[in-house]
């Protein structure tokens, strides 16, 4: 590449600039770096034109299996994304801006994020939301830390039916802190919260649950909420946003903090990122929320406008006393979430949730009718469910992958005593024909 890398300066201009600085060469500018500190190696390939680079990338992407029919979830879901989401978030003015530190020339980002916060409050049934965190798992970890701050306690109880990756992230975040994390092992088919309630006492800062949980089960956590509140602690509910088109909200269930992964709201699978983490809470905890918050205000003429607010919680002001170290969040992904929700609208979002529910129920019944297959969830489920197979589920999944079907998440790696169990996910994108074919393929795999 000549004059490599998007640098526009011509040799003549370079000369003029060096003259203005008063040095003779660019090397002079690097003179403060002693020779002994210079790079020992920089062994990289030569550059490529964009055409060669794109061909390389197409070839690389082609090494992934194409056209897998997917019934896997595990925190990431294959949903429809209206075309308008890509088009609008692709607007360069959103895309190539940064953190709205100067509000007068960033009202676009600021107002959009205010609208996003509003959407998250309405989805979760809580009072306040921030402008996004990284992803669902880190949002759960931030909620755990927030509960510790709010209550001043050092113990947390987490349901073993919370996504295992998210639990691992919470463990990672807490590993160096003087905090006790009690994990309650789940019992498939017994989705009452008695074991969780039994773990509550006056030293517990929060109980962390997920709804629907990792097995797909939808629960009513109102009684759990009452009991943890009576003990002076908080209820943290991790939620799957699409379910909130149908399922009772964390707010209705009595949650103090709700979190979730926003991928299902208009963000593509993209091999696991970027998505965004959502967090909402009751208003009284706003000063303990991590991350950026957008607030409404007025300008000198009384005109409505939006600014970053309550920044005194944040690292760039409070440094080590900040509520969190987060600086960059997932703003553009949150914008995708807002445009996704706005494009479907009130009715459309409820319909989307219903469609997911109906498709999954159809698949659940069909799989449940197979000989030797048992649906393990004790009660209601939303868009995923757990079946127990007469064989090792990992083997079945590996076999079906060879036929172009990702059959679900086998549980043996995450719950050693559930090696025959499989979590199957069905979104609105799966057709009846795909589901029927999948049921026959699974039946075939179980006969072999």
């Amino acid at each position, binding site marked *: *590449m000549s004059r490599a890398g998007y640098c*526009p300066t011509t040799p003549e201009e370079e000369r003029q*600039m060096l003259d203005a600085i008063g040095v003779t060469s*660019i090397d002079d500018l690097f003179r403060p770096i*002693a020779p002994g500190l210079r790079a020992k190696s*920089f062994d*990289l390939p030569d550059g490529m*034109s*964009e055409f060669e*680079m*794109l061909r390389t990338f197409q070839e690389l992407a082609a*090494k*992934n299996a194409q056209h*897998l029919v997917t019934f896997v979830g595990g925190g990431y879901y294959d949903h*429809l994304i209206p075309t308008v989401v890509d088009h609008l978030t692709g607007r*360069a*003015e*959103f895309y190539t801006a940064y953190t709205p*530190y*100067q*509000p007068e020339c960033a009202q*676009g980002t600021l*107002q959009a*994020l205010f609208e996003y916060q509003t959407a998250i*409050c*309405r989805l979760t*049934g809580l009072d306040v939301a921030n*402008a996004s965190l990284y*992803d*669902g798992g880190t949002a759960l970890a931030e909620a755990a830390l927030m509960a510790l701050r709010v209550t001043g306690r050092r113990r947390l109880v987490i349901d073993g039916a919370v996504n295992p990756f998210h639990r691992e992230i919470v*463990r*990672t975040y807490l590993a*160096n802190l003087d905090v006790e994390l009690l994990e309650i092992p789940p019992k498939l088919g017994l989705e009452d919260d008695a074991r969780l309630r039994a773990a509550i006492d006056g030293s517990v800062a929060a109980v962390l649950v997920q709804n629907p949980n990792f097995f797909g089960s939808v629960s009513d956590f109102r009684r759990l909420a009452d009991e943890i509140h009576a003990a002076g602690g908080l209820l943290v509910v991790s939620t799957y946003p699409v379910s909130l088109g*149908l*399922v009772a909200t964390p707010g209705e269930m009595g949650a103090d903090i709700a979190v979730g992964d926003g991928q299902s709201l208009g963000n*593509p*699978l993209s*091999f696991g*990122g*970027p998505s965004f983490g959502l967090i909402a809470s009751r208003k009284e905890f706003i000063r303990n929320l991590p991350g950026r918050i957008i*607030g*409404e205000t*007025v*300008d*000198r003429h009384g005109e*409505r406008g939006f600014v970053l*607010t*309550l920044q005194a919680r944040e*690292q760039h002001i*409070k440094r*080590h006393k900040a509520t969190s*170290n987060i600086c960059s969040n997932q703003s553009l*992904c949150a914008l995708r979430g807002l445009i996704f929700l*706005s*494009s479907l609208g009130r*009715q459309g979002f409820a*319909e989307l949730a219903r469609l997911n529910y109906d498709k999954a129920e159809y698949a659940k019944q069909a799989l449940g009718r197979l000989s030797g297959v048992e649906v393990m969830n004790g009660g*209601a489920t939303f868009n995923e469910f757990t079946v127990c197979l007469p064989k090792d589920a990992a083997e079945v999944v590996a076999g079906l*992958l060879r036929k172009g079907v990702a059959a679900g998440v*086998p549980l043996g790696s995450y719950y050693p005593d559930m090696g025959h169990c499989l979590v199957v996910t069905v979104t609105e994108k799966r057709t009846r024909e795909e589901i029927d074919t999948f049921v026959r393929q699974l039946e075939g795999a179980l006969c072999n």
Partner: protein
Amino acid sequence: MQLIYEQSIPGRPGVSLPASDVPPAAGLSAELRRAEAAVLPEVSELDLVRHFTLLSRRNFSVDTNFYPLGSCTMKYNAKAIEEAARAFVPYHPMVALLPHGASYCQGSLALAYELGRTLTEITGMDEVTTQPLAGAHGEMTGIMMVAAYHRAKGNKKRYVVVPDSSHGTNPASAAMVGYEIITVPTAAYGDMDLERFREVMTDEVAAVMMTCPNTLGLFNPHIREICDLAHDHDALVYYDGANLNAILGKVRPGDVGFDVIHVNLHKTFGTPHGGGGPGSGPVGVKKELIPFLPGPRIVRNDDGSYALESALPESIGRTAGFFGNFGVMAKAYAYMVMLGRAGLIQVSEQAVLSANYVMSRLKDLYELPYETSCMHECVFSAVRQAKNGVHAIDIAKFLIDRGFHPPTVYFPLIVKEAIMIEPTETESKETLDAFIAVMREAAELAERDPAAFATLPQSMPVSRLDETKAAREQNVCFGSW
């Protein structure tokens, strides 16, 4: 401008969904159902498009305005990298974690792995994790590995040392890992005071976090000494990669003695900042920290295939859901592949040239707190203008009216009235000259008519906003639901 919610008309349909091809199932019981559908906007697709298009026009961005926001490296975002990343959009991350699933994701795993290898060569480290989702997340991941390292060795450590010029994320990240912070002041020469550093450096220090060049745009000449002194106490040295754009191909932190580094792909490697994210913060480590890297790790087999390694007994564990902000990683890798060795070296050379040029053309009118040649950004102080009542923020608003995004102001915190300018390598000399002219005009106006700044900006959809009211009223959600 109206909010999208204020344009909502009950019953107006949104984007249509596929009709259901399965029978309706029995519904959820009443206690499991939400009482009412969430009150989301009900607008036509055209109204939606118009709303967000008009909103976007209320933003400055790199594609529309010069954006010399110091410490953020707002360079041009090549359009080709968007196209490159698009090829990787449809793949589900969970497939890689299914039994034998890695063989179905060889392209994606190869990309993440090769990005990691490229970063090890650029930074001089031995191994990289791409899992952290932003720079601060990388810092926290890095310090967690430091903690794991000390725990494994039985070291008792309490403190992390940071200079007072550091990014706020440094002390905040160390605090998230449970460390107490020791802040070392900046000496008159513009870098961490070496004498004070020697005094605080004890066996109880777990890590020293350095930004080099630092947030004043200066390259610390004592950096190897600092690394050596830390190592004498079995403390590890962390490199904050926010300013890596200045030294590509010139210095490799790993060669100098750093043990851990995070890299901001969205800064140095040209991926778009998205109005505040997504970023991506891969972390590189030296050999002694490899066992503690987050899992699962992407590895290359002898036969050239890629696999996931999950059995990592000493790993700190996952710090994020999957393999990082993969879409951002793909763009950054595309950028590296396009630029290649010579292109990346030219990036740092031209970025440093631009910053020194701007500095040389403004230093007669604005105070330079530390007079020396800078690296990729320069920090001025508006103290001279402030004597007339014109503060850094006023100059920022003047720039907005002239179509320039303001530099970072009031950071680093140790410089009064700081104005931190990072022009980057992708801006032409004409643009730099235009910016310089406006900065000079601002300085002259500050002499001539300081009161004129009070009503700026005037050309934006809103004028100066009442931040106190926002903080007091805490109106962060529209209406009631």
